């Protein structure tokens, strides 16, 4: 029981990171129909920003969390304004490539300015291990779980309880319909992008102290996040979160019982199977082609 319980606990904390990434992805996806491949690198970037703020500028960690999130949100807004908004009439493929270019730029910046040696984001409280009932949980991972909970609840409240949130949901469900209702789609899109990248930012800066920082740290998580949103059905935040936790658990179990190195391969295998047998995902519906 102890082992299984531990894997489940690990899976949950990993699932939180994936849930944040996946929610950001599905927001952008729902509005633009574009997979933001750079989401993983944005997450990586936030982790590094947090790291530098704490180690170079001796900032309080909590302040760094807020600043890193805001910085990523601003980056998202700028990306939308300078890249995706001008490309709104271009073929979809061009936007995929632009997202890729963003990924390459972020990776290049990380490789050149941050260096390839792995970095340890050391925080006094981060490594404290909490134990309960034979299970161990690093303090930072608890922070991740709590942080994710707060963010997810706030996001839900925002979408369901505010007018802007409703506009966001409406545009994600039916772009033309939203336009007819007078919703300024470009503003909503900008918001979606900003929130999407901010979510990647929170994920990165929260998980940073718990893991090794490397320029490539974002690639694995973003693929799992994509698998999560496909698994859970596109355009649905609930599905994204569900998918994220399912895959996080699966990855943790695979890592523990099969092999840690190949856990990503395992998740990818699940993605392929889902796409082959249930392309609409668990919660998706058949697309009506008019």
């Amino acid at each position, binding site marked *: 029981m102890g082992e299984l319980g531990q894997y489940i606990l690990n899976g949950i904390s990993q699932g939180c990171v994936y849930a944040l990434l996946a929610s950001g992805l599905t927001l952008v996806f729902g509005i633009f129909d574009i997979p933001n491949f750079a989401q993983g690198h944005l997450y990586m970037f936030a982790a590094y920003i947090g790291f530098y703020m704490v180690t170079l500028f001796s900032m309080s960690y909590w302040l760094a969390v807020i600043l890193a999130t805001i910085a990523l949100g601003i980056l998202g807004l700028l990306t939308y304004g300078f890249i995706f908004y001008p490309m709104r009439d271009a073929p979809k493929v061009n936007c995929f490539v632009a997202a890729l270019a963003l990924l390459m730029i972020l990776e290049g910046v990380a490789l050149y300015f941050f260096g390839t040696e792995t970095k340890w984001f050391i925080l006094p409280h981060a490594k404290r291990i909490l134990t309960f009932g034979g299970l161990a949980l690093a303090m930072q991972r608890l922070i991740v779980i709590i942080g994710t909970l707060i963010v997810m609840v706030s996001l839900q409240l925002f979408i369901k309880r505010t007018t802007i949130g409703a506009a966001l949901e409406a545009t994600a469900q039916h772009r033309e319909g939203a336009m007819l209702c007078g919703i300024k789609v470009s503003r909503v899109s900008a918001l979606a992008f900003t929130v999407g990248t901010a979510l990647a930012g929170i994920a990165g800066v929260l998980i940073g102290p718990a893991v090794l920082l490397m320029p490539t740290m974002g690639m694995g998580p973003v*693929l799992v996040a994509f698998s999560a949103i496909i698994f859970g059905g596109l355009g649905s935040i609930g599905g994204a979160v569900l998918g994220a936790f399912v895959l996080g658990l699966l990855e943790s179990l695979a890592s523990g019982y099969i092999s840690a190195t190949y856990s990503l391969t395992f998740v990818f295998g699940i993605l392929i199977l889902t796409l082959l047998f249930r392309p609409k995902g668990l919660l998706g519906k058949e697309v009506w082609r008019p």
Partner: protein
Amino acid sequence: MRKLYSLERVSWLFVLILAIVVPPILGGYLTSILILICIWSMMCISLNLIYGYTGQLSLGHSAFLALGAYSFGLVAVKLHIGFWPAFLAAAVITGLFGFLIGIPALKLRGHFFVLVTLGFAVTIGVIVLAWVDFTGGANGLAGIPRPDPIPLPWGVKFRFDSLLHMYYFVLLFLILTAGFCHRLVSSLLGKTFIAICHDENLTESLGVNTMSRKLLSFTISAMLAGVAGALYASYNAVISPEIAHFTRGTDVLAYLIVGGSATMTGPIVGTFVLVAIPEVLQVVPYLKTLINGVILMLFIVFLPSGIIGGFKTILPKLGGLRGRPRAGEHDIA
């Protein structure tokens, strides 16, 4: 009825002559750069086939490059069966992988396909690094042979030890690959690829089994990338997991977009520009990814048709340097 002496053909003949005649006077360093340009151009042409001409954006070609390099290296080094059998094995193995991964991947359209190919590339990268017993892990594989010396009629053997001879070998393959693809896309079969690129639904409603056509294009594309990988392995004598990193595939995509996708000459031009210029300017390796990313971003936003594509749009406006009006944006000449 294509004009035999069109401006384009003449200029490419000229470039070909330069490519053959000039290198002997260049030093070893420049020749090695040219070799790399040839190899990456081959990979770029292979990507052009599935993306530019069949409309499916594959981010997985780094996997095929690595599969080609590693299967050639492993077969040649561990099985000792000689260069050509190993080379053939590499092409066949990579083609097989292309076929197998293509079947599930191509059932999906648009972003799903892109994602699956990206996932495949990352997965292969992980496996190459992690499967130490088989691939040598981070240490890679060494001792990969050059082609066996070819006996010539007058008693001498054409050896491949020198960079220059290796260059001609690789150049020959580039010419073969380019010629093959050119013939393929200008044929009726090629037209069906282009039709799929324009409008897959319409093509399917006309009775074309688009799945099998896409699979054919993808498999050929994978095989060509594998051949490029095998050539790289042979030239470099040593391969390591960095050849399996998915950024190899995104770099080549950058070369393709910058040069101009869906044109025959774009891949070569784009590769040349993005590989030669950083080398000449002595740019640090890590800065290359950043520069490639920035350049790709600039092109995809402002000039998505690339250098060659841009030329083709501008030239007619400059007053009929082209012959007859060219229908279709897919350049097949």
